[in-house]
């Protein structure tokens, strides 16, 4: 059943069925109680199990699930904050800025570690690393790159083979792509060298992880950088050709976050939904096609999880963003 939905959802956007949304689906339609409008950047296939679990527990509540890109979500919420009850996004910086700017309703008594929430109004419920995904056919008989440096070397060795066949986020369009790029740039200069190499190979730019993986699977591209590990892991199931590599030099790990809109019409139901995401989530982690749970940061020193703190506002500054984008364009678009 789920795969049927997934299939429909993948096909539907092409048919222009939705009203500007990448996807729109109503769960538990016809329920007597309130209807929650959840706007999210997560593909419905991945998020559906969570909503199904929620409406099973709260049969009176129906959920309208709206999918769009992270940057688009940010703009829509700022334009019409009362049009949504819950905002779920992978772009932590944009979410934190929403909360900082007062778009989020504080929820007092959700039990979650202090690093996994901000200002009692922004709550993270998954930990997802950025990954390099490779189509194995391009590396037959060769060792797979494990670090960014090895990837750079591999790309430089066979430029003709990879020309036009590498992909990454278009950080100008994707909020998550921008977050990954800025955190990578903070972590190491290697990022810029990799971007220069990819730029010299006529890199293809994508808005979303899903499309990148589709193109990888079809062989349109052979290497994708900074793909969401969770998407990759699920999509590569049954596709032996794809290899998900979590780089060993350093990792960029994102936490998917949810907030309740300050102007929600259904505060109780919205609170219950966020509470469900944060507290009930680990119980359903055996569902293979679901999002990875929030994992503790304790002792994981080599794994760099992006912190939920005001520093995320830095790269959202107009001047800073302009500067970063121009540097990025200089490196990538040649």
């Amino acid at each position: 059943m789920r795969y049927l939905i997934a299939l429909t959802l993948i096909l539907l956007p092409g048919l222009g069925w939705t009203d500007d949304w990448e996807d729109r689906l109503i769960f538990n339609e016809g329920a007597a109680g309130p209807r929650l409008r959840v706007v999210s950047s997560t593909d419905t296939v991945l998020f559906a199990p969570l909503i199904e679990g929620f409406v099973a527990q709260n049969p009176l509540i129906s959920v309208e699930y709206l999918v769009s890109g992270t940057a688009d979500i940010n703009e829509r919420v700022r334009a019409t904050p009362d049009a949504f009850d819950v905002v779920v996004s992978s772009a932590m910086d944009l979410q934190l800025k929403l909360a900082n700017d007062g778009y989020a309703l504080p929820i007092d008594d959700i039990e979650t570690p202090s690093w996994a929430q901000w200002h009692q109004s922004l709550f993270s419920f998954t930990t997802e690393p950025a990954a390099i995904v490779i189509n194995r056919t391009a590396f037959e008989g060769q060792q797979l790159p494990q670090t960014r440096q090895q990837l750079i070397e591999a790309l430089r060795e066979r430029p003709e083979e990879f020309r036009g066949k590498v992909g990454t986020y278009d950080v100008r369009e994707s909020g998550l792509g921008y977050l990954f790029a800025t955190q990578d740039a903070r972590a190491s200069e290697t990022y810029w060298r990799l971007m220069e190499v990819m730029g010299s190979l006529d890199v293809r730019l994508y808005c979303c992880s899903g499309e990148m993986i589709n193109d990888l699977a079809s062989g349109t591209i052979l290497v994708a950088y900074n793909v969401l590990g969770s998407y990759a892991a699920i999509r590569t199931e049954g596709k032996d050709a794809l290899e998900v590599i979590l780089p060993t030099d350093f990792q960029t790990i994102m936490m998917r976050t949810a907030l309740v809109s300050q102007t929600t019409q259904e505060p109780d139901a919205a609170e219950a939904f966020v509470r469900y995401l944060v507290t009930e989530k680990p119980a359903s982690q055996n569902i293979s096609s679901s999002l990875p749970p929030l994992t503790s940061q304790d002792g994981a020193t080599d794994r760099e999880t992006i912190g939920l703190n005001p520093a995320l506002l830095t790269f959202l500054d107009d001047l800073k963003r302009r500067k970063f984008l121009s540097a990025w364009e200089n490196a990538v678009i040649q």
Partner: protein
Amino acid sequence: MTANPTVSGSLRNRLVLTLIGGAVVLAILLFFAVRNYAAQVAQQGQDNILEASVTSILDAAALRDGTLEVDIPYAAFSMLSTPSDDRVFYAIFQDGEFLSGYEDLRLANGLEDSDWSFKSGELRGERVRQVSASRTLVGLGRQTEIEVVLGQTQDALSQTLDQISRNAALLGLGFFLLAAALSFWVTSTTIGQLNKLTTSVTRRGPQDLSPFKKPVPREMAPLVMSLNSLMGRLDQSLSQSEDFIAEAAHRVRTPLATVRSYAEATLHRVERKENREALRAMVRAIDESSRAAGQLLDHAMITSRADRLEREDVDLVELIRELVQRLTPIAEMKELSLSLTGDPTVPYSGDPILIQNAVRNMIDNALKYAPADSTVEIEVTAKPEVRVSDSGPGFLPEEIDQLTRRFERGKNAVGTIGSGLGLTIAEDVATAHGGTLVLTNRPKGGACVILSL
């Protein structure tokens, strides 16, 4: 008999109230002082961090090819992370024109006067601490001013303050409790000295007018001194008046004896019946006065001996027997007999003259009230106890407690010779020896006086 003093206020209450009141005031002052100081320190801490953040932003500003670039360092906002996740607002202006950040954050007025300005205000419904600073950049032929405003909510600060307030309150409470306990202790030890003096005054014997010698705190020395001098004067005037009475009695007794012998002689010579009657009444009155004077002398003697009791080992039975032998003629004149019973010997250490005097007064009393042809029984036991019983009318139960007072006589004593001093003397002797005098009535009728030594 004791007059209750007029009580106005209480030293203990006044001391305790003053000390505790002082402790309350001090505790409250302590609470506010600690809280205010902590608030200042906490605010200073937040200001310092905001200042550092603004400085790092200003430092990151540069003129490149004539355009202003501000490359906000990651640490500038990272350092503003607080446990309460305080919200952060910032704005960057170039020559007063808004450039980037939060447009509703206004520049502080009067920034021209000094480079830095700190103020507290409201932004988006929350209390915000706001810092503004500016810097002048000089490029090629161009000069521009960059201003940075940084605001932060104060949730963490107020949480810290709440915690400090709680601790300060606990500190104040602890201080108060300690001070209160201390003031109770100090008060009770101070008042305790007074109580000690009161007890030692109360415990004194009725005749004890000697000065207080126990050590007292310096502040109480004047009180004890005036108490001692009062008692000294009292003692002096008491002994003076007793000396006077003894002297007076002595002076009265000798002429009385002369008057009596003249009266007796005259009685033998006159023959008219009414004259003899008058003379007999005269002799009786002289006897009564003489006896009263004798008892007064006895009493004065006993008081002085009792004050300086000299004990010697005697046999009570022997002592009483001698007395009984001396009194037997007097008893026989009244057609009464005396019987001495009890233990064969009763050794005792006491003043024989006082004891004889006391028992004589007891026997005298019994002889006065016993009916004719009856026996006055004297019993000496080894308790030691001397019991004198008669078969007269006995004591009236309602006045039995008052009969040992000086000059107090029973209602049924009318028509009998007596001064009212006899039982007083007996009781004084008993008290001087650490004993008691008990007056009872015998079940078969008649009085019984028990002298326990």
